[in-house]
């Protein structure tokens, strides 16, 4: 896939920012709301002065007005390290002639990386391929997204390596975006995502589905799993509707499960433009406001 195709995608997602879903943990200064309360210019609240507080943070004007000594607290902002975990198993190589699923997965990964990078967040990439995991550590330097594109273009989807390991390896990463079709180790992956979410991390799941999987051809076919060619099922007039119902039910169940786990579930079909999916994932309207009373004072 020519790099020029990414150019149009990057142009489409220019200006897209990927805000955090909630206050982030302590981290270097960035653009995301931090759980910490510090001495930035963005006023947040007053707190009564306690012995030991820095006297320079006492609001003298409030003292003059109210005869109450209080400390001025402001909202801190932090960076949100992000890792894009992309599934490069054989099931992504569908249809075999166009590889639409893999193309969409790459584009979504690059788009999300670009959005995170634009938010000045360190962004990395983990490719789970047949020969193991290939990781680009989160970075904020200028050529990060370009490096990701080159690595992705050099990867061919094959094999069936589990993804859960990549999620577990990203335990110290605040935000992960998993781009997969969930046809591998879906249960283990969900468990790993729960753990990551429980640790305070942010999890986004982009479920890649091909249009041909949603609407298979009408002619009788012998459907064979590319990751297990012993599995052969006749796809005929009598079995097509049942297949579609089963597949839809499974997708709905996955969406419920991932949502219940605290992750953000996004369905990405190959008939949808990649930049729309990126915008859907990075939608600021779905950002959670900081919760009052939960503060940590920045030291």
């Amino acid at each position, binding site marked *: 896939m020519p790099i020029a195709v990414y150019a149009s995608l990057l142009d489409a997602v220019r200006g897209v920012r990927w805000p955090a879903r909630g206050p982030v943990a302590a981290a270097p200064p960035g653009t995301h709301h931090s759980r910490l309360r510090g001495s930035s210019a963005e006023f947040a609240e007053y707190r009564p002065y306690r012995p030991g507080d820095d006297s320079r943070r006492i609001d003298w004007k409030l003292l003059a007005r109210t005869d109450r000594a209080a400390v001025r607290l402001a909202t801190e902002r932090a960076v949100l390290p992000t890792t894009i975990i992309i599934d490069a198993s*054989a*099931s*992504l190589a*569908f*249809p*075999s*002639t*166009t590889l639409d*699923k893999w193309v969409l997965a790459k584009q979504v990964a690059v788009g999300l990386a670009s959005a995170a990078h634009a938010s000045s967040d360190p962004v990395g990439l983990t490719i789970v391929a047949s020969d193991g995991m290939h990781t680009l550590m989160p970075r904020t330097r200028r050529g990060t997204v370009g490096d990701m594109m080159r690595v992705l273009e050099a990867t061919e989807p094959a094999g069936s390596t589990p993804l859960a390991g990549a999620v577990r390896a990203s335990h110290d990463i605040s935000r992960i975006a998993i781009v997969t*079709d969930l*046809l591998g180790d879906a249960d283990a992956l969900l468990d790993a995502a729960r753990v990551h979410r429980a640790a305070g991390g942010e999890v986004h799941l982009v479920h890649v589905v*091909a249009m*041909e*999987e949603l609407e*298979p*051809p009408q*002619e*009788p*076919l*012998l*459907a*064979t*799993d*590319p*990751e297990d*060619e012993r*599995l*052969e*099922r*006749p*796809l*005929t007039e*009598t*079995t097509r509707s*049942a*297949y579609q119902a*089963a*597949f839809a039910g*499974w997708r709905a169940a996955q969406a419920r499960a991932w949502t219940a786990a605290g992750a953000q579930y996004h369905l990405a079909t190959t008939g949808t433009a990649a930049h729309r999916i990126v915008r859907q994932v990075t939608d600021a309207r779905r950002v959670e406001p900081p919760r009052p009373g939960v503060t940590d004072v920045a030291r």
Partner: protein
Amino acid sequence: MNWLLPWALGAAAAAAIGVTLLHLLARDRPQRWLLPTARFVSPGTARATRRARTPRDMMLLALRVLALVLAGAAFAGPVLSPEGGRVARVVLLDRSGAGDARAALDSARARMHAGDRLVLLDSTATIVPPGQESAWLDSARALPVVGPAAESPALGGTRAPLSAGIIAAVRAAAEIGPYADSVLLSIVAPSGDADAALTHVRALWPGRAETVNVVPAQRAASFGGVAADSPSGVSRRPSVRGAPGDAVVAGARLAGAVLAGGGGAPRGAATMLIRMQPTTSDSAFAREGGTLLVWPGDTASAAGMAPRATPDTIGGFIAGDAAVLYAAARAHVPPQGRVVARWIDGAPAITEAAHGRGCIRTAAIVIPPSGDLTLRPAFQRAMQALLAPCAVADPRPLSDSTRVLLAGEGPLARAGDLRASAARSPATPWLLGLALLLLLLEPLLRRPDASAATGAAA
């Protein structure tokens, strides 16, 4: 071009139509398609029935149809034949008729062509072996000159009925070659009355026939050129040659025979009895139309006699309407021929065989040298019957009703109806081989199993 089994073409056409329909309705294994979400498809039999507007795999269909057509043509047996088809003949030559023998042979020869069959009717119905018809006719026409004891073509004597000849003709027609479409039965010189089975047997021949008359044979109006009771006063009384004291000679003389000298039958005699082996002149006598009765005194030394399997004694013999009773010793059997006298148990005692225009009668009866047996009236009557002229041919011409019955009506018989087994076409093995060759090529044209090109199904 004709077909030996035309129905095979129809069967091949029906099979070809069936194969074409199967190419519209064939159930086959669906094309293989890689689908990552195949696990959500219900398990089942990997077969799919499709109906198409046009037959699938046109090349394979064409090959199969062509193979079926060739196989059908092979079994149908194409035969190249001249325009209008070929008419084969079965010639039934009645040699016991009153017609002239040579004329009958000439008529039969004129009607014979290559591949035709020849059936002879005389004392039996004989089918001449295929390919030997011309040779037999040539040899028969030569009328071989033989010695006293030699065989001669049976131009008379015991006569088989026409029914036997027609049955033999039906059997001969069963081996007519594949190039004949129709068969004509030609009955040359038929004679005699219709026997009781002739109507039913004639129905075995499924077509019309033709009867061919020949000029009547010249019969000896007189023996030696002298008519009976001619002005010359020569008698036509039978003659007998033997020892005057011989009992049989005495009995023959009492029956009216004239004692002949050693030079043979007297001039004008029509019948002669001899008590010894016949000489050349005796054979010539019979050949010229005379009746020669050979009654050897010693049957053991007589030519043509065959020893009985079990010599025995019997109580007498019957000739004509006379029964001669005495204790007769039987040691020999007379040669084959028309039976003119029988032992009282029905076995032949004296037989007659045609010889030239006459006949030779051979007696296997031993008469005691002494006694009055030959003087008895019964013996006299028997002797008169034995000295009667030959029954060489049935002088009765074919009656009109019999002629109409034999001719029949309608078209000629179809060769296929008469053949015992289906004739073979020389093209059959080639057509069959070609059909098998095409069937061997069929696997090469079958669709291979679909690869995992999932996009091919889209």
